[in-house]
């Protein structure tokens, strides 16, 4: 990166933090700190909700996924608009009318304290583990690319986010998210335009689609039902619906964002906007990856995008690696020739030549894939712990090699900003839940308003940030266990959702019945995780059905014990 890029990166990050601190100034009330004074208009709610979900990994892995695996990941989001409708109809009016600070407060009103504690505890466990990973994952990628120490990068990432989150709370989070997310989207749009302009002259959108389709990158829809496959229409619509319902309806990091809306209408419009824009945005991110794939059909890509993998090659394997690189360049040239033949055959409307060119292109791609496989084997032979995946590095490799000075720094700032967005919302949610659902209940004399309450909330936010950094440090030693920790975090969603759906729709079910159903559901989901191959997207549906079903069945035996309190 040039001096200009470092200046843009440093200046932009400093501006984001200063903006957050300025927006969060002068807070005196707890509702300002926890839910931004419930004063946000819908555009702020919408951008905040979207920014919370779209972490740095979304903008790094998304294009990489499009590059390596095509468009099929988009189906994961098909259930999202339907989930938004259910939340607009049910959750928002209830949360807004009750003026709760956290979603789990509602469970106390509807059921009892133990059910609230169970849901809040599961959230703290799940989100507490994941906030560390949401700092670590992008830090690892950025540290490799920038040549920084991963611990330093984690620390920097956490410090940037916690500076304004601890000081300004939810208000600072919402304002910075809106600004940062707008800049991120604009930067990604400019990056996509640069990729498009880098394609050889004369290559049309139709040519790009033909090239991507010929090599299987336009796989945006799969109608075949397979419960073990997480990306098809049905898992996206049904499994995705329950996952998004759980995430947006019961995860405080999202509920806390739309509780900032100044009215039911403003919160609803925020979620409607999210429902309308999220899938097109995801299509755009994956499309950027597919466009990068097409670009690298015309321009020889690196043999392995991840610099850490390349650096791992030891002297004993250096000559073999160089030979593989030479072979890779030759095979990429053959693939380019086959592609040009295919495009020429299509223009000449010659089906026989087109079929031959398609077969030749597929064969050339197979040769390249085989060479790549040998390259990853060589990396492992050099260093068994070296990374063998490089999809997360495809986009940033292009950025570094092909974007103009200044814009490179802005893209890196956007990646940092995306991480700050999700981390700040998570820290704010963890702090809110810890203060409202744990401390104020365990210690009834704990401060609830004024300077002491604000100080307590700020200290708790700092505490969670410290925990996140420590966990991120620990994550660097977890290796392949990271994915397991990530999936473990998602095992609790279904149970929490089941509790909330029971609360919303099964009015005759009391606290004890729902609580028992939740415990059984959690045990079943954990058993499914360890004993079956069912895709995790279905766990939410399984847990929901068990909580609601068992709750209804037990409600005949256990009388409802829910309390009704005055507002």
């Amino acid at each position, binding site marked *: 990166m040039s001096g200009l890029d470092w200046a843009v990166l440093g200046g932009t990050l400093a501006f984001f933090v200063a903006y957050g601190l300025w927006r969060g100034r002068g807070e005196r009330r707890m509702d300002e700190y926890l839910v931004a004074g419930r004063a946000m208009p819908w555009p702020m709610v919408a951008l905040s909700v979207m920014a919370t979900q779209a972490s740095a990994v979304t903008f790094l892995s998304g294009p990489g996924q499009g590059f390596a695996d095509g468009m099929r990941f988009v189906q994961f989001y098909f259930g999202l608009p339907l989930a938004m409708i259910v939340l607009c109809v049910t959750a928002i009016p209830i949360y807004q*009318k009750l003026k709760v600070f956290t979603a789990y407060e509602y469970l106390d009103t509807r059921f009892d304290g133990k059910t609230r504690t169970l849901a809040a505890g599961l959230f703290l466990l799940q989100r507490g583990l994941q906030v560390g990973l949401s700092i670590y994952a992008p830090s690892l990628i950025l540290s490799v690319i920038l040549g920084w120490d991963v611990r330093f990068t984690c620390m920097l990432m956490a410090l940037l986010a916690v500076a304004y989150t601890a000081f300004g709370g939810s208000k600072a989070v919402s304002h910075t998210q809106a600004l940062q997310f707008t800049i991120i989207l604009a930067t990604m749009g400019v990056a996509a335009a640069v990729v498009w302009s880098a394609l050889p002259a004369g290559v049309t959108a139709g040519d790009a689609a033909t090239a991507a389709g010929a090599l299987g990158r336009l796989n945006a*829809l799969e109608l075949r039902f397979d419960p073990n496959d997480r990306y098809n229409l049905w898992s996206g619509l049904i499994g995705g619906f329950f996952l998004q319902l759980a995430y947006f309806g019961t995860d405080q990091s999202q509920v806390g964002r739309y509780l900032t809306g100044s009215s039911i209408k403003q919160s609803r419009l925020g979620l409607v906007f999210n429902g309308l824009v999220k899938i097109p945005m995801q299509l755009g991110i994956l499309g950027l990856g597919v466009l990068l794939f097409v670009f690298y059909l015309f321009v020889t890509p690196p043999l392995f995008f991840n610099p850490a993998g390349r650096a791992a090659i030891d002297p004993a394997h250096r000559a073999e690696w160089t030979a593989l690189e030479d072979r890779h360049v030759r095979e990429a040239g053959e693939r380019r020739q086959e592609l040009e033949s295919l495009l020429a055959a299509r223009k000449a409307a010659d089906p026989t030549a087109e079929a031959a060119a398609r077969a030749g292109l597929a064969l050339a791609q197979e040769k390249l894939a085989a060479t790549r496989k040998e390259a990853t084997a060589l990396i492992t032979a050099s260093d068994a712990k070296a990374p063998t995946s490089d999809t997360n590095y495809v986009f940033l490799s292009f950025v570094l090699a092909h974007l103009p000075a200044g814009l490179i720094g802005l893209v890196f700032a956007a990646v940092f900003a995306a991480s700050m967005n999700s981390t700040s919302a998570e820290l704010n949610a963890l702090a809110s839940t810890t203060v409202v659902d744990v401390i104020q209940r365990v210690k009834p004399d704990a401060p609830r308003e004024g300077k002491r309450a604000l100080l307590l909330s700020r200290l708790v936010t700092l505490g969670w940030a410290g925990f996140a950094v420590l966990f991120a440090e620990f994550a660097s030693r977890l290796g392949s266990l990271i994915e397991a920790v990530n999936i473990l975090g998602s095992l609790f969603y279904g149970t929490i959702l089941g509790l909330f759906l029971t609360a919303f729709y099964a009015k005759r079910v009391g606290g004890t019945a729902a609580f028992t159903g939740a415990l059984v559901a959690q045990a079943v989901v954990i058993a499914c995780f360890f004993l079956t191959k069912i895709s995790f997207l279905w766990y939410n549906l399984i847990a929901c059905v068990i909580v609601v079903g068992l709750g209804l069945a037990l409600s005949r035996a256990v009388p409802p014990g829910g309390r*009704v309190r005055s507002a």
Partner: protein
Amino acid sequence: VSRREGEERAPLFGRWIGWYALMVAELVAIILFCGWLASRNG
């Protein structure tokens, strides 16, 4: 206003039906677009 009364008086679809219909219509259009892309795959 008791909390449970607050819940029961929560508005349901009402005049928001247009927004919800728009979201469903856009989802259908996106699925059709994805189907069109998939038809050009392979």
